[in-house]
């Protein structure tokens, strides 16, 4: 894959980056030819975002060589990256909300006529350049960002999840315009979770796993499986993880009332028509790649955001949450991934655990200290929280902090717990304790919804799993079948393996070519 260097527009070799003892990139390489649309792929934690940050000037690599058109590339900022020939379009539009579009273009010294041309090509011909950015919809902002980048005519254009948040017709225009860059002397690096778009527009794909480049694939019909195989590595061939022991997995009674029911939930463009049931005594796993709408789902269920459509039922009765307090009253408690969102870091373990049951507005009188102490002591014992540094939560380890977050709900008695990636950045021992705790809660009759970015947790802690892709539920998988390979394929919205031979894959690509926009809909092996 390392041809003669002059043939390559971008040639990064052996790029590495460590953060203390953590290796973010071990040895990544990326070779992009002129006139090529090149996909950059990798599962969670593969080092993709670190490599992107290095190429955009956000992070300096420890070692490794990056050449653009044969010249060494080293950038401290996006401005320097741009001078070096690499322009990026980020997931968050880099537009100033309080300025109008024209001022934004002047700010970056972008040619206005060329930007107008690309806006027309991308499907926004009538955009008024005097519109203030704050008033425009997100999809338009992403198109403006892309048009501006195209107008600069960079050597390398890097697109990070460009089609996310775009409606179908704009997605089609974007892919068509990107496809037109082929055969010019410029290149595009295309980062996307949507394999069907990669098949439609990319020439080659570089796959990262555990901080290293593990392969470069020529994209053609049927190469999706090869890409997913490379992302998985040994796991695909390794034995299945032993499912957790549990007595609570008895068959549900046919007439059981779900603890929580979602019917056709819709949130903006991020979540559409999501329906599922969560029963008492079960842990339901949620699997999704980053940004597929799971954040919005949990925001709605925990009362932080209101859905645009659909119904929520708790114990069979319709509910509507205006505030997290409403959700908590209905028995839905939330454990976020980021402990800082949930805890009062400067306060003690005791106060943090007692917080939910001392806050009701109706009860402004003195706190029932002895009753509180009993509940808190019980929760600390149940979760085996290390209380040596109990006076300030911020001095606890991440794992112990997360236990405090869970303990505050356990202390009050849990009916329904919503866990959003609760084991992120936690040591393995504490993870095991948290899995066991979730199983124990389910055994005691609670219902648990668990989103996790670590696919193997599904078999360790869940009874079944639903998979969300592009804001829709695309699969429901029983725990026995939920090995990592199956889950990852489902998360990329690929059909199960036995259905994947050439003819099906090429059919999917043919459909794709006919109607690119319907990417999110194709192959939705939905849950009835």
């Amino acid at each position: 894959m390392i041809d003669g260097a002059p043939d390559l527009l971008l040639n990064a070799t052996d790029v590495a980056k460590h953060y203390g003892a953590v290796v973010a990139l071990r040895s990544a390489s990326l070779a992009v030819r002129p006139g090529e649309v090149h996909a950059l792929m990798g599962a969670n934690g593969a080092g993709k975002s670190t490599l992107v940050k290095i190429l955009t000037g956000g992070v300096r690599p420890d070692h490794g060589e990056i050449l653009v058109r044969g010249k060494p590339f080293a950038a401290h900022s996006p401005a320097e990256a741009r001078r070096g020939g690499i322009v990026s379009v980020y997931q968050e539009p880099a537009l100033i909300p309080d300025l109008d579009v024209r001022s934004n273009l002047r700010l970056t010294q972008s040619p206005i006529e060329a930007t107008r041309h690309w806006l027309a090509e991308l499907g926004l011909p009538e955009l008024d350049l005097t519109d203030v950015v704050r008033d425009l919809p997100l999809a338009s902002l992403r198109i403006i960002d892309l048009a501006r980048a195209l107008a600069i005519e960079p050597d390398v254009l890097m697109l990070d999840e460009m089609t996310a948040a775009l409606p179908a017709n704009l997605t089609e225009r974007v892919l068509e315009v990107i496809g037109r860059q082929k055969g010019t002397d410029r290149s595009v690096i295309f980062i996307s979770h949507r394999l069907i778009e990669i098949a439609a527009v990319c020439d080659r794909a570089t796959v990262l796993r555990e901080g290293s480049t593990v392969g470069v694939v020529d994209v053609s019909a049927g190469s999706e499986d090869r890409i997913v195989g490379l992302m998985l590595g040994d796991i695909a061939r390794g034995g299945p993880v032993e499912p957790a022991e549990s007595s609570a997995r008895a068959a549900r009674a046919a007439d059981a009332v779900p603890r929580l029911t979602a019917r056709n939930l819709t949130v903006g463009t991020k979540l559409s028509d999501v329906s599922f049931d969560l029963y008492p005594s079960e842990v339901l796993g949620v699997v999704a790649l980053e940004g597929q709408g799971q954040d919005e789902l949990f925001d709605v269920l925990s009362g932080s955001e209101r859905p645009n459509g659909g119904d929520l039922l708790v114990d069979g009765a319709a509910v509507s949450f205006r505030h997290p307090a409403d959700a908590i009253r209905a028995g839905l408690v939330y454990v976020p991934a980021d402990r800082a969102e949930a805890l009062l870091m400067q306060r003690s373990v005791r106060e943090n655990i007692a917080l939910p049951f001392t806050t009701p507005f109706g009860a402004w009188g003195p706190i029932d200290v002895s009753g509180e102490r009993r509940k808190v002591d019980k929760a600390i014992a149940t979760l085996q929280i290390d209380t040596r540094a109990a006076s300030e939560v911020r001095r606890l380890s991440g794992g112990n902090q997360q236990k405090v977050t869970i303990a505050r709900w356990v202390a009050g008695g849990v009916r329904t717990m919503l866990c959003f990636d609760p084991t992120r950045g936690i040591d393995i021992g504490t993870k095991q304790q948290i899995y066991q705790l979730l199983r124990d809660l389910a055994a005691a009759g609670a219902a648990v919804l668990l989103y996790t970015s670590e696919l193997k947790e599904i078999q360790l802690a869940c009874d079944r799993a639903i998979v969300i892709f592009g804001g829709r539920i695309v699969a429901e998988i029983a725990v026995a079948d939920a090995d990592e390979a199956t889950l990852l394929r489902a998360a990329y919205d690929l059909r199960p393996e036995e259905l994947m031979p050439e003819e099906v894959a090429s059919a999917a690509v043919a459909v794709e070519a006919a109607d690119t926009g319907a990417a999110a809909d194709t192959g939705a092996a939905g849950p009835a």
Partner: protein
Amino acid sequence: MTSGVGVTGRSRGEIADVLVSWARRNTWTLGLIGLLVVVFAITRLLQPNYGAAAIQGLAIAIVPIAFAAVAQAIVVISGGIDLSVGSMMALASVTSAVLMKGQGDLFGVGVVIGVLLLGLAVGAINGGLVVLTKVPDIVVTLAMSFIWAGTALLILNTPGGGAAPWLMEIISGPLGTPWLPKALVVLAVVVGLVWLPLRRSTLGLSLYAVGSNRLAAFRSGIAVGRTKIIAYVLTGFFSAMGGLALTATGGVGAPVPGSYTLQSVAAIVLGGVSLAGGRGGVLGPIIAVIVLALVRTDLFFAGVDPNWSTAVQGAILIGVVMFGSLVAMRRVRA
């Protein structure tokens, strides 16, 4: 203010379009102008002989605080805040008064230029400390306000010194018609000469960009730190103008900063500058200064106890800002 730009060679329709789009973007300023008219009408009702002479007195009184408001507006637009505006004004005022006392006109010009350079330098120190030490701006500028105030008192511990006659002349009296005070002309010329070209340059856009969204600004290739320092430098410049105006209006140096810092914050909030950064201009704050001064006059004429009149000013500030946010919320929902 911008409506006059490029009028020649445009059809009447185009001019109307420009006016309409300016009005749409500056509804807050237009509202303030309306409020100013209302307050002025009330003033005439309370004091039928409030005329040209009174307006000149008002103009001279507001010039220092108007410069302070412009100074504060610039740094707040860029996403910061400067609590040392009043102290910088005192420092500039005493420095100019001490140096100018008993000297000739030409020397006075040199002093004015020197004091403005001092303002730039002091602003650069403030900005440099905020950007380089990463200590919160509110802490840095509060600390610096003590330092500049102390320095001013070291230079001159009671009001004293003197002002060059031409400096006092330049802002007193009318220009042409008795209804146009020179003080307002000086204010408009200085602010216009600095702000209008700046507003239309990339640097001006960068000030708004950094205040509006730092990450987006960084990703747009803006040197965020440098832009913030420049904002503080400009604030230092206009604070020095405010200090010179104090010397010119009083004829002596004023070593005690008074309440200019907090008045400047009140004026920019009333003037439509968002404390979160990124929004507003300098015309609004200047009009807000005039409105607040007129309200003070009205309350005096109406015979209200001065202690009450301070409270009433506070109530007006909260009332107007609340009304503004209500209107904005309505518009978002509609």
